[in-house]
């Protein structure tokens, strides 16, 4: 049999030192692991235990069950379950509320509401987006809230999409969306994809609260946490026109930020392990932007045909996007 080449040279010494440093933390890792398990008995574990329990131990078992139901799962397990649950999601509808509050100059607030639905196969997205501006919010006499954007979008894999501007009563076609990964801005798709792909780490538990008539449990997570934080998501709305100026960017749902290196509050339903809300807050010297995804209905049966656009009656179809030169 071949002998192992175990020379005691500089390479061996270097590798031994490095690996020993990791191995020395074995006990700490073991404690961390078992502490995590301690607060979260795997349901099947307990259920198996129940099967083997004697009838006389019913009261004891019931107490265990109550304890299990009442005990919050550890953060790592909770996220694992949420990731697993999201793996089984084939479609959903949602709502996004975003508030951008600037104190720069006279101040202004931009409120955005997106409502949409998404389907995995074929990849489809439909959504509406409305933006309202409230000017001069830092003054004694704030200006009136006005609707500055009202658009509707249709996207379906393999087909050209469409953006409909309901204020100007015209529409135009967009390139076909390539994959779910390209649908980011205005949708929770990028966040959901990162959770599904386990590209997160849990920073801390946020406790529980009532949301949408259910008990929700919260986790603060960091998405793609292996790089220093960068300006990954739009925080400052420089794309919003000043009063009197024309809207120059539709904020196409198929484009936008990918939510990398971002802290997100995840509120989930412990009964289903599916998210109820995602919340992200970004602040700067003179602004704060809060983005909230909510109103989820998971695995709703949408017909793919409902994502195929048609020019609304009495609307003008433009030959190209009025904003993008290269489209």
């Amino acid at each position, binding site marked *: 049999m*071949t002998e192992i*080449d175990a020379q*005691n*040279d500089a390479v061996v010494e*270097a590798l031994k030192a*490095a690996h020993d440093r990791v191995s020395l933390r074995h006990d700490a*890792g073991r404690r961390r692991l*078992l502490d995590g398990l301690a607060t979260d008995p795997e349901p099947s574990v307990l259920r198996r*235990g129940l099967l083997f329990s004697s009838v006389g131990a019913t009261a004891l078992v019931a107490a265990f069950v109550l304890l299990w139901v009442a005990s919050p799962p550890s953060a790592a397990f909770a996220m694992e379950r949420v990731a697993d649950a999201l793996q089984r999601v084939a479609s959903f509808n949602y709502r996004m509320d975003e508030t951008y509050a600037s104190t720069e100059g006279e101040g202004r607030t931009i409120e955005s509401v997106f409502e949409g639905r998404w389907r995995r196969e074929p990849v489809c997205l439909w959504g509406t987006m409305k933006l309202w501006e409230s000017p001069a919010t830092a003054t004694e006499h704030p200006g009136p809230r006005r609707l500055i954007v009202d658009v509707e979008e249709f996207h379906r894999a393999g087909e050209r999409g469409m953006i409909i501007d309901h204020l100007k009563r015209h529409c135009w076609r967009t390139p076909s969306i390539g994959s779910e990964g390209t649908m980011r801005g205005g949708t929770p798709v990028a966040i959901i994809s990162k959770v599904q*792909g386990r590209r997160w780490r849990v920073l801390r538990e946020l406790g529980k609260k009532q949301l949408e008539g259910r008990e929700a449990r919260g986790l603060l997570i960091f998405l793609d946490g292996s790089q220093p934080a960068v300006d990954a998501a739009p925080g400052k709305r420089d794309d919003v026109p000043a009063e009197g100026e024309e809207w120059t960017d539709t904020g196409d749902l198929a484009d936008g930020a990918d939510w990398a290196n971002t802290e997100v509050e995840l509120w989930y339903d412990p009964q289903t392990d599916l998210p109820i809300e995602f919340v992200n807050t970004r602040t700067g010297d003179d602004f704060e932007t809060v983005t909230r995804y909510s109103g989820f209905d998971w695995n709703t049966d949408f017909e793919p045909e409902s994502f195929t656009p048609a020019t609304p009656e009495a609307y003008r179809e433009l030959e190209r996007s009025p904003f993008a030169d290269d489209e």
Partner: protein
Amino acid sequence: MPDSPSPAESDADRVRSALAGDREAFGRLYDRHAAGVRAVAGAVSKDWDAIEDLTQETFVRAYSRLASLRKPEGFGEWVRGVARQVARERLRALRRQAVTTTNRAAVEGLASSPESPRADHLDETKRALEAMRDLAEAERLAVHAYFFNEERSAEAARSIGLSRSGFYAAFNRGMARLRRRLGVTPDSPSAVRRSP
């Protein structure tokens, strides 16, 4: 460091005990298989700094899916499969982020840690870990397994599910490549032949 498991207790026993709610039994599975999982995590992800996190994540995921393990006696192979999956997910995430520099930074961080041993070792360690990234995955796996098992070759082979001869071949190839890469000759005066 890992406790010595009871000779009478098999992995199947530990899995069954863990499934019955005995967390300490899962701890003994961790003791027995963490070195192999670390080796897989390091070999597949090539991310030295992530090995501990990947190992934790692997065992957390394994615990949550333990009830789905059909052959409890095959826990070792199964958990290494979980580790491979976890490491690949990390690798894909890293590729997406193009963080090759992060690994270098991790090595820099290791080298600059106050816990680090002698200063003259630091550069060697950094160079050796970087050079390992260029090995074939099987070679990297064998080298990690050997050093994560305190240079016990039989344990190393077992921890990654290889025969001894298969393990020796991959390990020797990897070490030879590392030495060439790092300019360390086998016949250098400091080299001492040791029995396995």
